[in-house]
């Protein structure tokens, strides 16, 4: 599963991620292009008990979320 949150203003990256997380998906990636979205989604994912790995890309970051 992939959530493309590039260019979305806060808090949409969290809300779009939450919609997928709520379906009990164990592994997903979230594309973000600004630092606030990266931090917000990471904080949300950790609170939801996912491990987060951030890969730097040309547009920003690709966050890999894996259920603990």
């Amino acid at each position: 599963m992939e959530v493309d949150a590039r260019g979305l203003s806060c808090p949409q990256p969290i809300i779009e991620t939450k919609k997928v997380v709520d379906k009990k998906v164990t592994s997903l990636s979230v594309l973000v292009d600004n630092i606030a979205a990266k931090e917000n989604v990471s904080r949300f994912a950790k609170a939801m008990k996912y491990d987060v790995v951030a890969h730097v890309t040309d547009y920003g970051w690709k966050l890999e979320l894996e259920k603990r």
Partner: protein
Amino acid sequence: MNISNEKKSLVIAGAITGIISVTLVLLGNPTNMGFCIACFYRDIAGALSLHSAAVVQYARPEIIGLLLGSMLISIIRKEFKPRGGSSPVFRFVISFFVMIGALVFLGCPFRMVLRLAGGDLNALVALFGFIAGIIAGSLLLNQGFTLGRSYKQSAVEGGAIGGIFGAILLVLLFFPSLLKFSTTGPGSLRAPIIISLAGGLIVGALAQRNRFCMAGGIRDVFLFRDTTLLSGLVMVFVAALVMNLVTGNFKLGFGGQSVSHTDWLWNFLGMALVGYGSVLLGGCPLRQTILAGEGNSDSAMSVLGMIAGAAISHNFSLASSAQGATIGGKVATILGFTVITVLAIVMIRARKREAVHGS
């Protein structure tokens, strides 16, 4: 950055912000108005003769500092990213009504926190309104509301708002006779320019680094019980509270508070409109100012919308006074809820139709 470091940094930044806020009041700003994004855009609109309410005219260096502080630190930290193109005109309209709601309450969310720290209980009523507005706005976002994606823009587009604010600062410093200055009322109460500017620059940089957002702190608690962002705001409150208690500026109660009124329904609804609009815009007036500094031209559009909203507010007697909300202000608040809700629903429906038929 791990969670505890993020929180630690927020707590320190919040404390410094609270201390600077009260210091500005001690040095001359109106009570509980070390910072007020809404009031200060209104004062700037007045200084530029966009409205003619003689008591609220001053090109507030705090706001100029906030925006330029955010711009400088984001350039230094390589976080200055010009982007825009996400429904700029609709953002202008929402921000316009956010400002009208803020001036019905007489403060932005930042000043709401500072008013609470000064013992003004009207701000507590407003806080409930703000939270209600955030929840209502979140419902729209859950239904699929979006202002659309932003895209990369040129450095000129991203930096333009900095140029505008820089120009206002230069006029204030070197050609002040071009601007209007209140001689009575809140606009005449001001800390020395250099200190106001320095305070703005510091808080602007701190807010940029720590992603301060009045709406975001509350959102995280409701959405996933995380208090990281909120801890910064709580520290602003605590630091300002302590400073107010120590300096004898704490006055608990509803009546007789500075630049405020006790019309609880309109304190609630005014700030509810601010919360509602802020969630749809992606941040409170402070956050919009900081984002504009980071090169976000959609947020720059919000800043312009707020300045326009402030001018209209005073030209048409929509802003409240110590006597309470005006008829015009009440009508405009209801109109704000209606316009934003109707346009949002139209937008959500159009998106759902597109999703069904393919775009």
